[in-house]
């Protein structure tokens, strides 16, 4: 959380990690968002694990660094190394596989425990195009998200459904959070909140599930 913004000039630099079980489609989501391609032969990047996306929100330049993580269970313990210093996290599950949702619960609980409210969370149920095989029910997922102060989205990387929206909303929230932190630091001059120094503060009431702004999706530039 600490070195959150680096608002050099009028821009933001955000680090967003993609968490979740393997094969839930983390990479597809990132590729769909950044390259707008799905299982395509013409994907220009060599790798899909570190992607950059530039966008402008409310006249401010935002650079999203999207970090893919290894989802296998055996690498779960490495999570803290990945999500250290990140501003946002998207935790992905497969709507057709309940086990993957179980992993989401684990992740979110861990993130909240380790980073408190310093990180903006979005839970994403992927593969809604396979609606007929759904195993994870919307009510349960949304209830959990509300409880933990995370946003919840139903997305499909295959059909490019809701993905832009999800990243945009997460960005909005990260900006909000970054500005808040900036204010605080200038007020109290709390120096040395660099790196792994975690300042835990109770501000759980920051959760406004859907901040439906009129400009959603309009001011995207790649």
């Amino acid at each position: 959380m600490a070195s959150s913004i680096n608002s050099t000039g009028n821009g933001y630099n955000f680090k967003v990690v993609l968490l979740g079980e393997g094969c839930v489609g983390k990479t597809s989501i990132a590729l769909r968002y950044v390259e707008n391609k799905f299982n395509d032969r013409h994907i220009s990047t060599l790798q899909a694990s570190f992607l950059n996306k530039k966008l402008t929100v409310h006249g401010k330049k935002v650079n999203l660094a999207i970090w893919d993580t290894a989802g296998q269970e055996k690498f779960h313990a490495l999570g803290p190394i990945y999500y250290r210093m990140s501003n946002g996290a998207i935790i992905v599950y497969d709507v057709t596989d309940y086990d993957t949702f179980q992993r989401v619960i684990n992740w979110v609980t861990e993130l909240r425990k380790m980073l408190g409210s310093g990180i903006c969370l979005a839970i994403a149920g992927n593969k809604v195009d396979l609606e007929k095989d759904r195993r994870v029910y919307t009510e349960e997922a949304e209830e959990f998200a509300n409880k933990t102060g995370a946003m919840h989205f139903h997305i499909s990387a295959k059909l490019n459904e809701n993905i832009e929206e999800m990243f945009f909303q997460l960005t909005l929230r990260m900006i909000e959070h970054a500005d808040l932190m900036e204010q605080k630091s200038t007020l109290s001059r709390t120096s040395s909140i660099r790196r792994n120094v975690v300042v835990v503060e109770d501000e759980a009431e920051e959760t406004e599930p859907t901040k439906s702004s009129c400009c959603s999706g309009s001011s995207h530039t790649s």
Partner: protein
Amino acid sequence: MYSTKTPTLRIDEADLKCKNGCGFYGNAEWEGYCSKCYREYLQKQRSQTECNVYGQGYDLASSNKNTISAHQKYEEKKVQQEKKYKLLNISFRKPVTKVQGYQELLYELTKDNPDLEKVKTDNRDLIAMIAKTPVERDVRKCMHSFIIEILQNKDVKRIEELSEITQNFYQVFAKRLENSAKYADITPEIKEKLLDYVERYAMTLLYRILFCPPFTNDEEKDLAIQKRIRQLNWVSGKNLECRIHETSSEVRELVYTSITDLLNMDSAKAPQEKLSCVIYCCRNIFLMLQQSVGGPASADEFLPALIFIVLKANPARLKSNINFITRFCNASRLMTGEGGYYFTNLCCAVSFIENLTAESLNMDEKDFNAYMSGERVPANTWESALMICESLHLMCEDITLLDEMKAKTTEIMTEALNLKEKMLQFQEEMKSEVNMVLDKTPLLITHSQRLPTNLDCEDIESYQLPPPIIPQVCPTTINNSTPQNDMRISLIEDCITPSPTFDFPSFIGDDSFDVSKAEDETSLISLDTQSDFDTQQDKSTNELLVSTHLNLPCSTESEQEDYHGFTVQGSNIPTIPCSTGDLSLNSTEMDCENYTSYFHNT
């Protein structure tokens, strides 16, 4: 195993080891010893000098015993002192007595530092750009004060505090670049370069102090991870579930390059250079994965592959390098980009290796322990696979080499055949042409007024003309080549080498039976030229050359007419040289005389 593929840049591992041979890594700043041995070595040296000083006051005879005992006492005392320090958990450091020492140290660090010179030359443009401006002075000032601060604190503060100082310096300097009026008219790109340069320069300068410092346990950690990786050398790609086609030669090449890149990290100095080694390594891994995955690889595939590479590379001083980067690189600048991502993955890989269990390799606890203790060696380890692959690889290389050579030889052969054919063709053409010409124009020499002169004589001036002999008319055949060619050769020879050592015997032999008849046209002409030349020594050879050259082209261009002309105007030939100068007449007369005398002799 990797000896064939290790980069040439790198130093041998033996060079890194302690001079004492204790198995730990040595360090140039400790005169090639490891920290422990160096401490002992220093103590020994110090006590020796002290002994010497001590011994001076005594008789030489008695001093021996005394020094030994004093030495022993001293050693004991030291050991005790050290124990006390250890008990108190105080690391053995130089006391802060020498406050002025850092100036000397700075000088020592700056002097003869090839890496520092390299940083300077790499950034020559930047330095030239800011040279002699307030910017340069300010940068210098900032950097100097930071370096001094580190040098002053290096023995007093913990490494974390030093890291804090460094990070603060980066931040303060970046802010200064943004806000200070001195930097107002500098473009953002230059500012970025300045930031990079300052970090590079300062870290390269302080590398000896800040990399794997003796007051941290970095070295122990290095050894621990090294040992751990060595124990895990049986782990194969299959164990890690990483999708590497070990049998493909392309993939193998990439494995080697990424291993090399990772190993290079230790020889790089500045944190960003180390980081770029990691980036190269990871990019190669992605290239490698692309071969097997068939698309952009995700982290699910990348991390196991990276772990595999780290296991196979077993980079020297891995922990020290990682710590150095985390502590002293400009976190806000480097850790957010691609480099930061790869570096994080490297940390993950190391952490995974450290905490590796049977479970994480999906194998039986018992098997795992057997492999770890070395009791059992798996049949299909990467090592043995590579061993076979290595020889296969060599064979492949040899085969390609042979193929190349074969292609070259066949090419040469066909070229040679072509040439041969052409030569034959040329010969045929020539032959037919000559025959044709000969058929059309049989060589007839009707009249010849002059005869060859005797050139055998030493004295050129005494050449005399032979008595006039009336040539007979008869057809001749010229040996084998074209008359033009022969003529040309003889003409040129005559002109170029107008020496008295002209090769006469053959000429004489040629003519010996028929000189009087002057059948051989060639000899006749050549002699003409020769005699002509002899008589006109004063005249420049150039003139002759020009004249011959002028003559030749027309003779080749219009063979028939020219040739025809020869025979028809056969009588004119001898008059050609005569027309070039009147002098010739006298000398040719002399030549003729000489010639007759020669004839009489034979």
